[in-house]
């Protein structure tokens, strides 16, 4: 029971970060700010949700798989963010500093 409520809180908290990231994606002015909001907030949101789901897992094998999924999604989304920013900087305008 204790574990379940803790997991609920973690998943809810993770969802809040995802919503914050999405609001940033919709509201921020340029692609760099949007990437910043999205990659950071979603990274944290994903970690919290993965932790919450791992608490509900039945076996150590499931926990291990959730950790693996978390790790690779985190690495892949960071790489994607980097690739998008890199493409934009090379072909378009660099970030503005004013």
């Amino acid at each position, binding site marked *: 029971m204790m574990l379940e409520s803790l997991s609920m809180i973690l998943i809810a908290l993770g969802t809040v970060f995802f919503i914050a990231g999405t609001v940033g994606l919709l509201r921020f002015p340029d692609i760099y700010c949007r990437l910043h909001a999205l990659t950071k907030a979603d990274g944290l949101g994903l970690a919290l949700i993965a932790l919450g789901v791992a608490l509900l897992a039945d076996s150590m094998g499931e926990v291990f798989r959730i950790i*693996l999924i978390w790790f*690779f999604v985190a*690495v*892949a989304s960071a*790489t994607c963010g*980097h*690739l998008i920013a*890199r493409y934009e900087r090379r*072909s378009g305008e660099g970030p503005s500093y004013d």
Partner: protein
Amino acid sequence: MTDPLVIFDLLLGLSIVALALAVLSVRDLFAAIVLFVIFGLLSALAWVRLSAPDVALAEAAIGTGVTGALLLKTLHHLRYVTGTLDRPEAMNLTPVTPVPMPVLWVNAAFCGLIALGLAVAFLEAPKVGPGFDALVAEAMPASGVDHPVTAVLLNFRAYDTLMEVVVLLAAVIAVWQVERGLSEAPAPHLGEVWQGFARLALPAIVVVGTYLLWVGAEAPGGAFQGGAVLASVGLLLLLSRFYVPQPAHRGIARLAFVLGTGVFSAVALLVSGGGRVAFEYPLEHAKTLILLIEGLVTISIAVTLAALFHGREPVALGEEERRNDT
């Protein structure tokens, strides 16, 4: 009190229809591809909600992952051919001439017929009922595997699966023929972070793909899902230039293309005779034969999908000139 999941299902269904409309109506091809990938991911989620994890895995791996990569590669090539590569102002342009109206109408007619057929099939299907569950469950001991979907795909309805493998083989043959004279768009330079990611992800993808194949005997997974995941190994190798296709490797590539189809058909024919029909595996060898077929079909699928991503047949420079002369 309605189940809160009903609301989720409704939203999911509406999102899928809305995304399908958006894919068709958006003008920017890149946006269309991204929307198509999201459409595929939500469809996979819908299959999970329909308790069909096997279809969900296939949709996510092949329908979304590999198809998305193929579409992006095609767009890259289109931009290269039309000279709009790396020009952001060309982003919103469609780099191809419009499709002629008669072609559009013929396509629309065929799509309409398919939609009509699906609608009829949907309306005629019994609303409730066990479907084929009971029949499959009854026949499971004769299948050699423990997962009903694998039993249906590789044993009871193996002929259909063989045809799916043949479709892939036909596709790669067509691509090698059609793209013969095409010049190759340079691979995008993706930088060091990408290289590091590829190095990190490669071994993990090999493990996941093999796991999906192996687990197919008793849980959702199997040759197509495992093959699609393993194909992404090829995609990573090609994109990061760890492997550049050589003309000398064509022989082994051709062997890999036909391996699955060849062994599948050979086994199907060899087990026939002595009162059995084709595809009727003897029970004591069923598991071994199914694993053998699945393993080799997986290799074929992985290599074929990676070759489709690469596109044109790797031809030696001299050979290409000779071909253009004639």
